[in-house]
């Protein structure tokens, strides 16, 4: 067995007829922070769902810690998931539980720790995201950025082997943004885990990651270390890093021509 925590081989997936992922290959090692970037709708969230075993690939496979995810039985999958954390794109906090209980959720479900220890652990996690004082609030009383940070605290609750962050930086002010960025880096280094960050925040993430994958058109369009990415002359990467509208990454979802959609044809002919 290799030291790779995750191996993705020729992965393909589609929800309906339209293929979302066509042929994705990636490897990720322990102790790495990996960024996945790509246009909106390019399938980044879907890729995380595939790694977590929430949906099954139509071809290829994902291997986590030597196990092929989609071949696992339900019990084995749940066992594997105990070692994974996931920060959902929209937080997905449990709205009927307080901030404290949200972070404590997995500890109560999966461990027999005494309540006093759970309390200390939860407060530590909340402290790390700067929200120890908000532990008694309900999710509805949080701002968007606060909810996201609570969700982050919840996803690291059990110190998993692998954490997937779906856009951890959106909705954060510049200060919390760099705090959270370095938190992800420190956690990864301290616990020897692997972190996958899906993000649009190129500048911030290039500061903390070890490796970057660019997802486009259902496949990995480019990949490299932050230095390689910054120096890359590939038009695709250049467009992404500098946020230009024109380039190989289309801004528009595939559609009829604009004129046809607006029914302009008739008037002009």
């Amino acid at each position: 067995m290799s030291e790779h925590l995750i191996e993705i081989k020729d992965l393909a997936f589609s929800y309906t007829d339209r293929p979302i992922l066509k042929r994705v290959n990636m490897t990720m090692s322990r102790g790495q922070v990996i960024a996945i970037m790509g246009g909106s709708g390019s399938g980044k969230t879907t890729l995380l769902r595939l790694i977590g075993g929430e949906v099954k690939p139509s071809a290829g496979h994902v291997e986590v810690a030597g196990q092929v995810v989609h071949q696992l039985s339900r019990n084995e999958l749940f066992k594997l998931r105990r070692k994974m954390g996931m920060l959902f794109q929209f937080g997905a906090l449990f709205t009927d539980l307080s901030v404290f209980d949200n972070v404590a959720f997995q500890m109560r479900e999966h461990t027999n720790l005494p309540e006093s220890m759970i309390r200390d652990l939860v407060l530590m996690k909340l402290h790390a995201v700067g929200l120890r004082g908000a532990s008694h609030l309900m999710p509805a009383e949080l701002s968007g950025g606060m909810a996201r940070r609570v969700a982050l605290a919840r996803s690291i609750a059990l110190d998993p082997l692998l954490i997937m962050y779906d856009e951890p930086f959106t909705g954060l002010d510049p200060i919390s943004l760099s705090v959270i960025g370095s938190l992800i880096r420190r956690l990864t280094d301290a616990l020897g885990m692997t972190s996958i960050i899906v993000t649009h925040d190129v500048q911030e993430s290039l500061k903390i990651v070890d490796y970057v994958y660019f997802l486009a058109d259902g496949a990995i369009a480019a990949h490299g270390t932050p230095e390689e990415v910054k120096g890359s002359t590939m038009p695709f990467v250049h467009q992404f890093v500098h946020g230009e509208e024109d380039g190989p990454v289309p801004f528009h979802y595939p559609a009829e021509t604009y004129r046809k959609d607006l029914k302009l044809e008739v008037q002009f002919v």
Partner: protein
Amino acid sequence: MYKRIAAGIQAIGHRAIDGIWRLGCAARFFILVLLKSTTSFLRFGLVIREIYFVGVLSLIIILVSGLFVGMVLGLQGYETLQKYGSESAVGTLVALSLVRELGPVMSALLFASRAGSAITAEIGLMKATEQLSAMGMMAVDPVARVVAPRFWAGVISMPLLAALFSVMGVFGGYLVTVVFIGVDEGAFWSSMQNAVDFRYDIVNGVIKSCFFGVAVAAIAVFEGFDAPPTAEGVSGATTRTVVTSALAILGLDFVLTAFMFRGVD
């Protein structure tokens, strides 16, 4: 013309197949919930918490409705019975109507619209906001952790609420006929005591409300879990819970009554 008729028939067929398909899904889901109920009983606190939400918070509407239904029964019963000079039998009328029919049926209808809709909306919203996915990713089964406790809370609350409904109804009937109209109190209670049989009336009433509880709770959790993860999806599912529950309650009531009270003593 021919084509339109064919299309119409086809549409009916499609709806029938869809309906049966959903029924099958619901049945499978029901069995799944039963299979995953062990957590609910090992950690009964989860169920108790939900009993508070579906049962205790339904108390007011159940108690008030029971009181009014009993009062109306008392009035109407007295009105008719006194024509035949047998107004003392009004206690029997009130108690039997409540225990056999109105208690279980009315409280189940109220329960479906108060608690069933709330269960559907809550589970549907948890799904729409990815809370159920998140729970699954934390290796906690949402059917065992979220659905089953709500189901059992509904099943347990329903007979208790129906009993309270009947009690309040009898009290309402007493209030109107004895206190306000002046029917003899002794006659009211003794006719009731003579006519109501524990096994035949009360136990059958409780059995009915147990069936209704299972039906309403199963429909509510299924609709919530099956709801499309959007605002319209959840609102549609909530409406369906109330409508389907009402039909199920009334249909079941007929079947159960046919089995229980066939006029043979």
